[in-house]
C-alpha cells in the first residue's frame, strides 16, 4: 500500500519522529473570521463567556501587526491560509478509555515512545495527550480527583469548571498581550488545565505530550495551571512532530498562577521538526509563557530544553508580585543547520525581597543562530530584590552565531542585579585531547555539550534529563567533521 510505503520512507529519514498518521480529521475551512471563531466555539460546546472572550481577542488582533524585533527571519505567514481547527474523528463520541482510542493513533504514540498504557503507569506520570488540538486520552484522573486536583483538557475545563477558567484565563497573559497571544486567544483549540487545591502536593509529575499532525493546521494550545495556597505541582511538557515540507505555525500560550506559599515547576523538552539540513520546512514556534507569583512566598520555575523548530521565539517569564516570591529560569537552547532561536526570559520584580535566577545555555552549530534576550525589571516597590543571571554560549564551528541581549531596568536602589556572560567554542584542541584518549570526536562533542548543560539538566526530573541528553546527541549529529 502506498501509505505504508510512504510511512517507511518517512521513518527512514533523519528525523526519528518524522512520520504522520492517516487519521480522518474534522477541520474547519482555512482562514480566519468571526464566523470561523463562532464555529470553533460551537463545535466545542463552549459557554457564551468563552465565545465573547475569543471574539474580543480576535477584534483586538485585527488591530495588531506581526512583531519583527527578534533576530529571526522567516517568509511572511499567510494567516488566511491556515486551518484553525482540526479534531480527530474518533473524538465524536469521546473515548471512554484507552481501548477506545483510534488504534492508528495509539501506534503513533508507541512509535514516539509514548505508550500511554504502560509507560505512563510505570513512570507514575499522568498523561493528557494532545493530538491535533484535542485531547484524546487522559489517565490517572481518578487518583488525582481524590485529592481534589483537576487535570483535564482545556475544553473539558471550560465545560466542567467554567468559574475557575473564567477567573484565571487571561489573568496572566491578557488577550491584548502580543500578536501571537491574541491570535491564540481567538482561536485556541485545546490544551491542558490544572488546578491544585490549597495545601495539596501533587503526588506525580503531570505531563503532556503535544504533537502537530494534520496538514496546515496551526496549533494554538492553551495551558492554564493554578496552584492554590500552599499547593505544589511539577508539570512536564514534551513534544515531537511528524516530518513535513512546509512551515507550520505554532503559537501556544501557557499561564501559571501561584498563590501564597505555592510552588509550580514547569519543564519542557521541545523537539519539533527543525527543518532539513538546508533549512527547509520546520515548525515556527512562537510561544507566550508566563507565570505569576501572585501570593507571598510563592515560587515558579521554568526549565526548558529547546532543540527543535525552525524558528523558536519564546520567553518564559515570571511576574514576582508577592513578597519573597522566587522566579527561576533554566534553559538549554540548541540550534543546528539553519535553525534560529530567540529565547530568554523576563523577571519582573514587584514584591519585596523577591529573588530571581536566570541560567541560560545556548549552543549553536552549523549555521544555527542563537539569541538570548532577557529582561530583569525591578519596580520601585521591590525593596531588597535580587537577581542573578548567567548566560553562556557554546559554539561549534565558525558559521554559527550567538547573541546576548540582557536588558536591565532597576527602579529601586536596594536591589542587587548581577549578570555574567561567557562565550566559548569547542576547540580543536579539546577534541584532539579527547581523541588522544580513544574517544571519538562525536562522543567528545556530546560529552562537552552535556557538561556545558549540566547545571540545567540537574533541574529536570530524572527521566526527562536522560531524554534531554539523548536529544542533544541526536540533534548534533553531523555537526562536526
Amino acid at each position, binding site marked *: 500500500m502506498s501509505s505504508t510505503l510512504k510511512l517507511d520512507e518517512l521513518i527512514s529519514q533523519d528525523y526519528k519522529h518524522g512520520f504522520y498518521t492517516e487519521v480522518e480529521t474534522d477541520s474547519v475551512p482555512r482562514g480566519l473570521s468571526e464566523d470561523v471563531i463562532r464555529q470553533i466555539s460551537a463545535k466545542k460546546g463552549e459557554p457564551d463567556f468563552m465565545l465573547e472572550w475569543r471574539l474580543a481577542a480576535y477584534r483586538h488582533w485585527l488591530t495588531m501587526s506581526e512583531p519583527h524585533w527578534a533576530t529571526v527571519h522567516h517568509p511572511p505567514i499567510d494567516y488566511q491560509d491556515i486551518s484553525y481547527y482540526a479534531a480527530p474523528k474518533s473524538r465524536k463520541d469521546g473515548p471512554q478509555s484507552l481501548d477506545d482510542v483510534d488504534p492508528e493513533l495509539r501506534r503513533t504514540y508507541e512509535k514516539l515512545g509514548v505508550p500511554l498504557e504502560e509507560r505512563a503507569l510505570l513512570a507514575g506520570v499522568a498523561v493528557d495527550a494532545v493530538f491535533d488540538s484535542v485531547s484524546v486520552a487522559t489517565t490517572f484522573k481518578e487518583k488525582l480527583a481524590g485529592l481534589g486536583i483537576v487535570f483535564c483538557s482545556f475544553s473539558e475545563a471550560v465545560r466542567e469548571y467554567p468559574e475557575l477558567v473564567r477567573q484565571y484565563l487571561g489573568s496572566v497573559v491578557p488577550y491584548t498581550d502580543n500578536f501571537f497571544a491574541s491570535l491564540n486567544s481567538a482561536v485556541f483549540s485545546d490544551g491542558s488545565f490544572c488546578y491544585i487545591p490549597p495545601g495539596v502536593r501533587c503526588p506525580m509529575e503531570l505531563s503532556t505530550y503535544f504533537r502537530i499532525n494534520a496538514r496546515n493546521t496551526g496549533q494554538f494550545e492553551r495551558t492554564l495551571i493554578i496552584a492554590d495556597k500552599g499547593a505544589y505541582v511539577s508539570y512536564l511538557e514534551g513534544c515531537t512532530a511528524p516530518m513535513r515540507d512546509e512551515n507550520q505555525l505554532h503559537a501556544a500560550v501557557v499561564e501559571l498562577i501561584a498563590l501564597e506559599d505555592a510552588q509550580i515547576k514547569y519543564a519542557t523538552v521541545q523537539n519539533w521538526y527543525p527543518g532539513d539540513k538546508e533549512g527547509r520546512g520546520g515548525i515556527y514556534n512562537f510561544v507566550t509563557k508566563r507565570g505569576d507569583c501572585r501570593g507571598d512566598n510563592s515560587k515558579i520555575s521554568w526549565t526548558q530544553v529547546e532543540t527543535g523548530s525552525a524558528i523558536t521565539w519564546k520567553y518564559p517569564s515570571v511576574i514576582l508580585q508577592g513578597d519573597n516570591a522566587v522566579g527561576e529560569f533554566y534553559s538549554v537552547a540548541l540550534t543546528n543547520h539553519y535553525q534560529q532561536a530567540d529565547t530568554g526570559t523576563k523577571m519582573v520584580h514587584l514584591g519585596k525581597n523577591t529573588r530571581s535566577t536566570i541560567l541560560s545555555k545556548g549552543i549553536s552549530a552549523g549555521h544555527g543562530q542563537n539569541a538570548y534576550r532577557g529582561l530583569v525589571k525591578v519596580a520601585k516597590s521591590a525593596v531588597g530584590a535580587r537577581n542573578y543571571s548567567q548566560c553562556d554560549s557554546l559554539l561549534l564551528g565558525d558559521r554559527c552565531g550567538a547573541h546576548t541581549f540582557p536588558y536591565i531596568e532597576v527602579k529601586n536602589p536596594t536591589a542587587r542585579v548581577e549578570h555574567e556572560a561567557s562565550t566559548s567554542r569547542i576547540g580543536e584542541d579539546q577534541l584532539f585531547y579527547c581523541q588522544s584518549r*580513544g574517544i571519538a570526536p562525536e562522543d567528545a562533542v556530546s*560529552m562537552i555539550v552535556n557538561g556545558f548543560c549540566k547545571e540545567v539538566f540537574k533541574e529536570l526530573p530524572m527521566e526527562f534529563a536522560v531524554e534531554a541528553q539523548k536529544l542533544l546527541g541526536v540533534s548534533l549529529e553531523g555537526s562536526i567533521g
Partner: protein
Amino acid sequence: MLEISKLHVSVDDKPILRGIDLAIGAGEVHAIMGPNGSGKSTLAHVLAGHDHYTVTSGEVRYRGRDLLALSPEERAREGIFLAFQYPVEIPGVANIYLLKAAVNAQRKHRGEPELDAVDFLALVKDKLQLMGMSQDLLYRSVNEGFSGGEKKRNEILQMVVLEPKLAILDETDSGLDIDALKVVAGGINAMRSPERAILLVTHYQRLLDYVVPDRVHVLAQGRIALSGGRELAQELEMRGYGWVEAEAANRRKGGA
C-alpha cells in the same frame, strides 16, 4: 614496537621535522632531548595523530602496522598514549567522566565489557593513591583550574589507568616540584614492563636519574643529531646543546 623512518613533517608549509629515524623496541625507554623549538612536541603530536601537522614523506610503523593511516582515537585504542606538554582544559566535563569514557572506549575496542561506575571507581582509587592525588580532582572539570603540577600528575594518572603499550610523555617533568617529580617518576617506572615502550621528552637530566633510559637522543633542527646511552644526558647537562649542533653540522658537511 615503533619504527620511524625518514619522517618529514611540516606545519603550514614550514618544514619542522627533516628526516627522523628512530626505532624503539618493546620494554625500552628512550629519552628525547633538544633545544626549544627543535621539534620534540611536533614529533609527539604526529605520533598521536594531530591533523595540524602534515607528514610530507617518510613512514611510521607501530607494531607492524602503518601508524599514519590510523585516526587519533584508533591510535589511542591500539595502545598509544600522549601525555601533553600543555594539557587541555575542558570546562564542564568531570575528570572522572573523561577517564571513564576513555577506558570504556578502549575496552569496547578490545571487545571487553565496559566497566560500570563502581568497578571503575575501584580501579581509579588505587591509581589515585599511587599518584598521591586527592579524590576531589576526579570530580573537578578536566584540568580546569588545576595547577601546573596537578595537570602533569593528571596526565600520568590517565596513563596508569589506560595502561598503554607506547607512552609518549612530552615534558611531563617540567614544572614539577621535587616531591612531585618523584611521584611522577614512580608512576612511569610502574609502567615499565617488557611489553611496553616509553618515549620521554625532557629538558632535564633529573628525571632520568629516576627513570633510567636505555637510549638518549638529541633532536636539533628537525633531525636526530646525536644518540647515546644515559651518559649522553649527563654530558648535555654540563655542556649544553651548542656542541651537538656544531658536531651535527660538521658531520653533515663531511658527509656531503
